[in-house]
């Protein structure tokens, strides 16, 4: 790794890569999501049948992934704003990234049962 590089191959670069990947993922989801919501203009049955897909165990895991992506993008986005607008932002960018990851981990742990619980109940009974 080239010494003296602020950016390449370090926390700054990997958080940027992750920010980009999660942003694109959420954008593609949103496109599909507006289409599925538009089914409320077709009929209640068409909407409910499509939303049933969201309730299957496999898709529940994808929803957990979506939550992971949105949460990281949101928290890291606030970090980017702090780096740009807070006078000490650049100095503390690394500490802020670890704060982001800690908050992300806590929220992901808290979201696990609410988002995945119904999938486990369906897969393993009761």
């Amino acid at each position: 790794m080239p010494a003296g590089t602020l950016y390449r191959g370090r926390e700054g670069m990997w958080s940027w890569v992750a920010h980009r990947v999660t942003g694109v993922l959420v954008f593609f989801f949103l496109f599909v999501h507006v289409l599925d919501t538009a089914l409320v203009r077709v009929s209640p049955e068409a909407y409910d049948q499509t939303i049933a897909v969201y309730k299957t165990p496999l898709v529940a895991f994808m929803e957990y992934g979506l939550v992971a992506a949105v949460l990281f993008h949101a928290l890291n986005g606030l970090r980017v704003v702090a780096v740009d607008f807070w006078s000490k932002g650049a100095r503390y960018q690394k500490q802020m990234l670890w704060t982001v990851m800690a908050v992300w981990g806590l929220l992901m742990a808290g979201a696990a049962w609410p988002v995945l619980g119904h999938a486990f109940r369906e897969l393993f009974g009761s």
Partner: protein
Amino acid sequence: MSTETTPANSGTTGERPIGPDNPAPVIEPPRTRTGRSPRSTRTNFELHGWLFMRLSGILLVFLVLGHLLIQLVLDGGVSKVSFAFVAGRWASPFWQVWDLLMLWLAMLHGANGLRTIINDYAQRDNTRFWLKMLLYTATVFTILLGTLVIFTFDPNIR
């Protein structure tokens, strides 16, 4: 490449790593804007886009995380989502405005982000142009459809 380019790491004191306390040397902007600059570089569009990403991002934290909390966590998570549930929510102007704002901000924020990414990776002028046309078409279509759905929602459709 020009021979005047500053070699990496020159102009800094010795071996100290570059960081907030020892900034990298400033690179002069390659050209100044004049009346003859191409149209696309004559405005502050990119500056406003940059600001918009940050302001919309802050608002989206509340809008999108609030939305996910309501849809996936509260009241039994996704299991409760149905036509009747949506009808209940869109009976209130508050949630209509919430969803409308979220739709417009998330789509414009995401589309502007994707525009940056296309500019970064699509090297040929033609590829870049058509990818952006595809992006803009999909974005306008999605925003209009989502807006129409919120405004024309009919709980008694059947």
